């Protein structure tokens, strides 16, 4: 009995699957492919890969036009993409890229068979797609990619930090090549997008963003999860249309990613021009505030406060409170207090607001009765919340406020009797 028969039988106990004889390898398929898909063959030694190039004109795109005027220079984009250090990011020196892979599992057995690359021209997006014709040619494709990446000082992707970058890194290591991406600056648009739209959109994947933000609708697009299998079919059958579908899908990924990047950069440069909903502006302000970038946060907060009467209460607290905290940081406590009082007047008595106000009156103004009144108000509010069974998360505020109340009461008592601390024994004795 042959080994093959034994395997068939052993596997039969586990699962059954059909077998199909393969078409012998030949190169006849290349010429039609070149014609139908308009790709070029690039050869080195005995290996080759395919390249498809296109230029995508950009029309009627305000963000693009805006950046075009600035020569695609960006001065504030670094903040939105999460870099620590101030640095200009000239978008024409960036290479946008997106991979199509043989799976999503990651690890050394997942291959990138299509690397789509986008770069900015003065009035268009240039798209280059590098296609792996078969596994054994991987090195020549990577070799070429290495040269390309070296020409650009930084790369931009969508979700590349966790997926595309490590995956390409694996490919370089496996082909015993230097990983050019390792030290290169990389910008992940997914993270930037999340900073603005995490709470605004149901999800922040590229499909959602291009629909909601770029207002682009794809037609006849293949679902991403089918792509690996279509590629496997392609290398067995060599039908041009199989590859064509994937190229089309990837082309839109690239173009839309570049447009998203351009839009985000425009937002970073002039948020009030390019963001329109208060929730987006509040999200961006919140991000700057948390990163302690007060300067870009201020105009956004002021804008929000200016228009605040149109917002629901939930949105209201954030700009007032954050503006107050910035003013406090800048050594303007009295002005800060004004904004907090404006919240109190609207009946926004969140414990954080109470706490800040009480601190101000207790420590700066030494106005203990007023501080106590504020604390009492906050505690009443918390008790109300508790009765509505929404107070579960507020436990720590409760404790802190009660503690503060006790201290204030003691201070008031001492003020009234005119006795400083630790003097009680003397008076008693005397």
């Amino acid at each position, binding site marked *: *009995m042959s*080994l*093959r028969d*034994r*395997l068939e*039988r*052993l*596997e*039969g*106990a*586990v699962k059954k*699957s059909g*077998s*199909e*004889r*393969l078409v012998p*390898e030949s190169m006849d398929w290349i010429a039609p492919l070149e014609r139908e898909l308009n790709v070029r063959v690039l050869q080195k030694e005995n290996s080759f890969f395919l390249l498809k190039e296109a230029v995508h004109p950009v029309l009627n795109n305000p963000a693009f036009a805006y950046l075009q005027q600035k020569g695609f220079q960006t001065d504030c984009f670094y903040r939105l993409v999460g870099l620590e250090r101030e640095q200009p990011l000239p978008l024409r020196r960036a290479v946008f890229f997106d991979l199509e892979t*043989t*799976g*999503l*599992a*990651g*690890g*050394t*057995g997942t*291959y990138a068979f299509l690397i789509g690359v986008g770069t900015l021209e003065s009035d268009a997006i240039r798209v280059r797609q590098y296609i792996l014709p*078969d*596994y*054994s*040619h991987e090195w020549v494709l990577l070799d070429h990619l290495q040269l390309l990446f070296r020409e650009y000082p930084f790369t931009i992707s969508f979700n590349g930090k966790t997926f595309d970058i*490590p995956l390409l*890194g*694996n490919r370089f*290591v*496996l082909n015993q090549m230097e990983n050019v991406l390792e030290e290169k600056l990389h910008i992940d648009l997914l993270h930037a997008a999340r900073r603005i739209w995490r709470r605004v959109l149901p999800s922040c994947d590229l499909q959602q963003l291009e629909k909601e933000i770029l207002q682009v609708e794809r037609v006849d697009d293949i679902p991403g999860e089918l792509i*690996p*299998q279509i590629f*496997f079919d392609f*290398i*067995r059958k060599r039908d041009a249309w199989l590859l064509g579908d994937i190229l089309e899908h990837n082309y839109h990924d690239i173009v839309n990613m570049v447009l998203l990047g351009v839009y985000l950069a425009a937002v970073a440069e002039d948020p009030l021009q390019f963001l329109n909903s208060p929730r987006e502006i509040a999200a961006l302000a919140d991000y700057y505030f948390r990163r302690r970038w007060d300067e870009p946060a201020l105009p956004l907060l002021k804008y929000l406060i200016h228009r605040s009467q149109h917002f629901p209460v939930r949105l209201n607290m954030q700009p007032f409170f954050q503006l107050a905290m910035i003013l406090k940081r800048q050594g303007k406590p009295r002005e800060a207090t004004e904004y907090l009082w404006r919240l109190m007047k609207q009946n926004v008595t969140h414990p954080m607001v109470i706490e800040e106000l009480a601190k101000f009156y207790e420590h700066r103004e030494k106005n203990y009765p007023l501080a106590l009144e504020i604390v009492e108000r906050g505690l009443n509010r918390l008790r109300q919340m508790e009765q509505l069974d929404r107070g579960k998360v507020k436990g720590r505020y409760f404790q802190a406020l009660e503690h503060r109340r006790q201290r204030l009461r003691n201070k008031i008592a001492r003020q009234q009797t005119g006795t400083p601390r630790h003097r009680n024994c003397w008076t008693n004795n005397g």
Partner: protein
Amino acid sequence: MNLEQLIDYLRGNPQLGANITHWEEIPPREAQWEDFPDAIQPRLMEALRAKGIQRLYVHQAEAFRHVEAGKHVVLVTPTASGKTLGYNLPVLNTLLQEPDTRALYLFPTKALSQDQLNELHDLITRMEADIRTFTFDGDTPVAARKAIRRAGHIVITNPDMLHQGILPHHTIWIQLFENLRFVVIDEIHYYRGVFGSHLANLLRRLKRIAHFYGRRPQFICCSATIANPGELAGRLLEDDVVVVDRNGAPSGRKHFVFYNPPVVNRELGIRRSVVNETRRLARFLLDAAVQHIVFARSRVRVEILTRYLKEDARTLHMEQRRVRGYRGGYLPNERRQIEQGLRSGDILSVVSTNALELGIDIGQLDAAILAGYPGSIASTWQQAGRAGRRSTTSLAILVASSSPLDQFIIQHPEYFFHKSPEMGIIDPDNLLILMSHLKCGAFEIPFEEQEEFSPVGTAEILDYLVDKRVLRKTGGKYFWMSEIYPAEEVSLRSASPDNVVIVDTTEGEQVIGEVDLFSAPMLVHKEAIYLHEGNMYHVDNLDWDRKKAYVHRVAVDYFTDAITKTTIKVLTVDEDKDAGMFRLGYGEIQVSGVTTGYKKIKLHTHENVGAGRVYLPELEMATSAAWVEIPDALAAELNFNENQLSGALQATANLMRNVAPVYLMCDPNDIRALPMVRSPFSHIPTIYLYDNYPGGVGLSFKFFTDPLPIVEAALQLVSHCPCEAGCPSCVGPMLEVGTAAKQHSLIVLQQLTQALGNR
């Protein structure tokens, strides 16, 4: 009363004495020392001296020398003999001199890794060396993983993590692989059967990846005492391995007592329960304040015994917190606390599953009671080894259950004490296992056309996988061509690819056990009475698609006996040989079994009180088997009628299967025996012994090459069993084999022993 006095008391107690089948006194042993070899770095030597280690045991020094000479080493030593230092010494010594080198430690469980980490940390801190040591397993926080990959000098992990988490991602472990110098594998006797066959392939993958990065790591292995540590290590590593087995560690006098609970029902061969007898013995230890450990075979038993012993502690006016249970499922903190309590002496009695069998540091105790034979001689020694300080006397008691394996061991102490017969057997070339690792290997690095992963079959299997469209062959290489992450589909430990889980619905839903797929139709068909831990359960439903059996507890006066039709088809005869009038064969078989119904049988009277039908699919498995053909002439000569012959064959098959685990070091479930009065293949009476795993793992082949010890042991088991005419502890239930089976199987086995002995 101290331990010595207690031992005297136990010895003199006539009530207990009647149940003691053997009392072995192992004399104390002096330490054999050797000075630190010159090659050891001064810093390391200082750190060891600071810990109170002035010299090495001879086995530690010998292992060190072989490792220094570049050899793979397997260190064979009993519990508490300082084997950890045996591998830490050469590894740390090299790391001190070459700070770029890396080492990978493999332990079979996570708990052991943690313990190992603490030990290494202690030495490294004392040396004030920059040697970073980390455990890497499922519990490692994601945030820490990157640092471990980049900077860990010693990475401690387990085979499952290596298989799924490290090897398929070797490119991000580049710092480890480019500098990999040592691989330490502890407890290699654990890696036998299916698990061992997987490990051998996992090591093939590891070596292949190391080779890709230009390294050829050196292996240091440790094993408990088994018959073939060198052979097992050699098969795992597929390279020459030096065996170091001259133990230099001292030990105090040890008393090892075999205790067989008295028979309460001779007909059924039922003895008093292990749990109650263990409790009785442990109470003596509690009363004498002798620190001890009780090993129980299941988690439930641990809980029951812990409760009993706490009660006993109370009646003895002792604090109940001095008795503790210990098992998987306890929180790590709780476990650390118990381990600490044992070391400090706060805890007097601990009841544990085999979780404490392996090298977790709990110090040495005075006594150990093993409630039931742990399944292998090596495990028994490891559990018993928990008792035994280096200088003072210790006591270990093995309490046997009614199971045939326990009964065989308890009545044949000579197998246990004088010739450890059990062998770690693996088959790295089991086709299914090999194929699953070839898939993983292709995922990791494409295979070259001429590459040899396994000595046979690499290219054929790779081509087969190309046909199945899992791989793509192009440019002289095989590439992974699938979206699947293959390591995720391969479990290293499961004995059979699928198990049926048994869910008790008496109170909520609780998983109480599992049975392998091929036994499930017999044991847990709908309406069956399933016996587990002495309790009876009624099977309400067998959900075949989800592989779950739902049961609830009952108290009924009957049990069920499945009507099963099992047939064997011989597919190939790979080898055969004559032994007197018998003929032995080895090859591949197809086993098919179908359960069609069941009988209800009243307890004690064994009346047939009902029956039912079962509708379940027929199961098929291709595996390897050895068989013994019994000539018609013998049956004629013995004048057996058809029924008697069938009973004798069944009894003989049961006996051989019952003792086989002693030699093959396998779970009783791993091997099956099936008699056929008229084998459709040979047309004469035949007994088949087959591996209960698709493709086989080498167990039946071992029987084919060396059948005599198993046949002899089967003969011993039946001839020494005190039952009248057969019982479940020897030939099987009388109902199944008939009243004459004990006597008839004795004759068959005598003939067979003689024939094999004369070869």
